[in-house]
């Protein structure tokens, strides 16, 4: 008994202070991708190397510009390595979650601040003010690789991130939940289970798509066994991209969903 107490007291409080204090991801961390339109010579290399086809060309008023979809991105970093004009820069900003899928698009020529303002505007729509104080979440694995699951475990079971300090709790059944946190492309074999889970959750409810697979199908898209993103099966309220997203990025997504973030 004594050793147990001793260990606990020696360890002390390990819980992180994110988001009260800003968390800085390590230098090598691959987060938000920025495209410099001036430097882009439209050589198409990034489109070719991207394993998930996250880069596309868009035509606007006769001008051709590059567009990246963070929902599809698996943050492998190949585009930055391949771009010889240094037009693509991977930052270590991990706060990527968005309420609208379009907010996950990075368009060359459109700077970041503009899209953040847009995000702020949409936030004011106040859709889910019901859940502001406490949120009960059911995590649903719709065929993920287990990476996102372990990040949720790290959030919930590990004392370092301690999700419960935000009043967010993970419950055992969808019938007790306000919110479904769904991971995976989803797979064909789990489609029925996901739909049944969605219908078992009482109204009002919301759905958070966690990870690249849930947001768009990610690297498993366009396959006989998967659907390209869970929004093809159930309606989604918040998208948290990343492969897998860091625990802090998931916290950011939750707080965004609860409108607790002032932008």
């Amino acid at each position, binding site marked *: 008994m004594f*050793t147990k107490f001793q*260990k606990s007291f020696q360890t002390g409080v390990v819980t992180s202070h994110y988001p009260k204090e800003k968390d800085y991801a390590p230098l090598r961390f691959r987060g938000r991708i920025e495209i410099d339109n001036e430097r882009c010579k439209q050589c198409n290399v990034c489109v070719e190397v991207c394993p998930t086809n996250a880069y596309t060309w868009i035509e606007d008023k006769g001008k051709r510009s590059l567009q990246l979809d963070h929902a599809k991105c698996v943050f492998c970093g190949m585009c930055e390595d391949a771009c010889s004009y240094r037009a693509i820069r991977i930052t270590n900003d991990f706060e990527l979650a968005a309420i609208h899928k379009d907010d996950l698009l990075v368009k060359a020529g459109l700077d970041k601040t503009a899209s953040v303002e847009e995000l702020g505007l949409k936030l004011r729509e106040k859709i889910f003010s019901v859940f502001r104080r406490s949120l009960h979440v059911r995590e649903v694995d719709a065929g993920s690789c287990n990476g996102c699951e372990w*990040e949720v475990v790290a959030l919930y079971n*590990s004392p370092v991130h301690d999700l419960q300090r935000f009043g967010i709790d993970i419950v055992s059944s969808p019938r007790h939940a306000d919110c479904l946190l769904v991971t995976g492309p989803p797979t*064909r*074999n789990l489609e029925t289970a996901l739909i049944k889970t969605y219908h078992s959750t009482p109204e009002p409810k919301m759905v958070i798509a966690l990870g690249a697979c849930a947001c768009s199908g990610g690297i*498993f898209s366009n396959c*006989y066994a998967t659907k390209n993103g869970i929004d093809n099966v159930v309606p989604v309220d918040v998208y948290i991209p990343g492969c897998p997203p*860091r625990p802090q990025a998931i916290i950011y997504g939750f707080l965004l969903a609860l409108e607790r973030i002032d932008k």
Partner: protein
Amino acid sequence: MENHRQLCITELTNQFKDTVIITKSFLENEIYISTKKENLLDVCVYIRGTLHASLSSMIGNDERSLNGNFRIYYVFSMLRADMFLIVHIPVSEDHPEFPSITTKIPAAHWYEREIKDMFGLEPVGHPDPSTLVLHGNMPDKTYPLRKDFDINTHIPLQESKLPFFKVEGEGVFEIPVGPIHAGIIEPGHFRFSAVGDSIYYLDAKLFYTHKGTEKLFETMPYTKGLFLAERICGVCAASHATGYCQAIEKVAGVEIPPRAKFIRTIILELERLYNHIGDVGNICTGAAFLLGSAHGFRIRERIQQLNETICGNRYLRGMVTIGGVRFDIDDDLKKHILTTLSHVKKDFKELVNIIINSSSLLDRLETTGRLSTEIAKELGVVGVAARASGIATDTRLIHPYAAYNEVDFDISIFYYEGDVFARTKVRIDEVYQSMYIIEQCFDKIPEGPIKTSMKELPPYKQALSYVESPRGENIYWIMTAPNNMLYRYKIRSPSFCNWPSIPYTIPGNIVPDFPLINKSFELCYSCTDL
């Protein structure tokens, strides 16, 4: 090695004479043995019994465009030498049948059902040829891994037809669990037939997370396949990436720089570390010992933060690349890693001390979920579960790769109990060994480049690749196609061979012990379902 290969070839030729054609692979440790359906069982039984080999993988391949037939490969790995014997038989499209070897070699049980689902070839004589991967929800005559099946085929959703084994009798009731679970775990469906609190029979249905991974590999160039390999499983990412890169490097005939080999070893051991420490914590969760669980997850988190510093991803994704590694470990980072590990070592030792001195916890762990050595051998169990059941097997020792033949380490060979506690002890021992390996790597690591350039992939070359992931032996079989594509990439994860053994460990235990037993095996669903 060459002597040993010659010895095997001579023995096989003497035994089977004209019924087999033996070809040497361009790789030193592989022998391909071509035979016919009629002789298959004899050859397999001889290799397994007399030559002391175990069935490591079975690969179906649609080679109709090359030679008009399907082909099934049976990979046997020798237990006492770094040698693989690969028996293969042709199966024609007109007679899509092959003899089942399950009755003689039970380890083939799931492979044959998988081949039936994915290629439409019938294992004749299989005791339970029901659907495994596709859940019977596909239209008739739809076989995803056949070459004439387009990956984008839209298949309407049908109701699944999973057969369940039912136990009947007085007082027997059924408890269905999953596929959406109460905990934060992957999906699987379990049906317990219980009498009171004790489980009588467990029927486990998996393959819910089947994402068509093997088919996806065939549609992308090999450079992109690496990122898919990293995403086969979240927590075995470095192992799968290393396995993929080794396979590509073998067929392309590329030797990676020695520094890259050592960095890969360090990365693979870091993966083992965070998994094993997390698993020890998770086993405590399964026994409701929350103190141990909180400390386990806290230490795991520390290593994952270290991982993020080393390669920008908490799951070590994006570090291993074809031809070497992407990031170097400089002196500052080396110092940071070694300091963190020395803290972790002290921390973990204290945690272990608490665990093994907690009698209420040991009461849950000891004698729970016993896997006997015989069953483990018959089913071809690998990894931690095998070592806890008295089978001394470790790919790092038997088939060394990366820099494992240059470092010194021990594997657990003293545990025969096969219970949850034995599996916990194996993990605890391996944590210290992993740290020892990392320290040695830093002592021996040479200076030099970390990456070498790649050539074109030669078409239609075959090779095996193997990695000991935290869960056990991963085996990959690659066959290349023209234009830098892959013809077939077969992944056999340790979870695939360990899953069938879990139902044998359950009967006699109480229902609340199932999560604990499951956590002590700590098998991936995504690795298995692909």
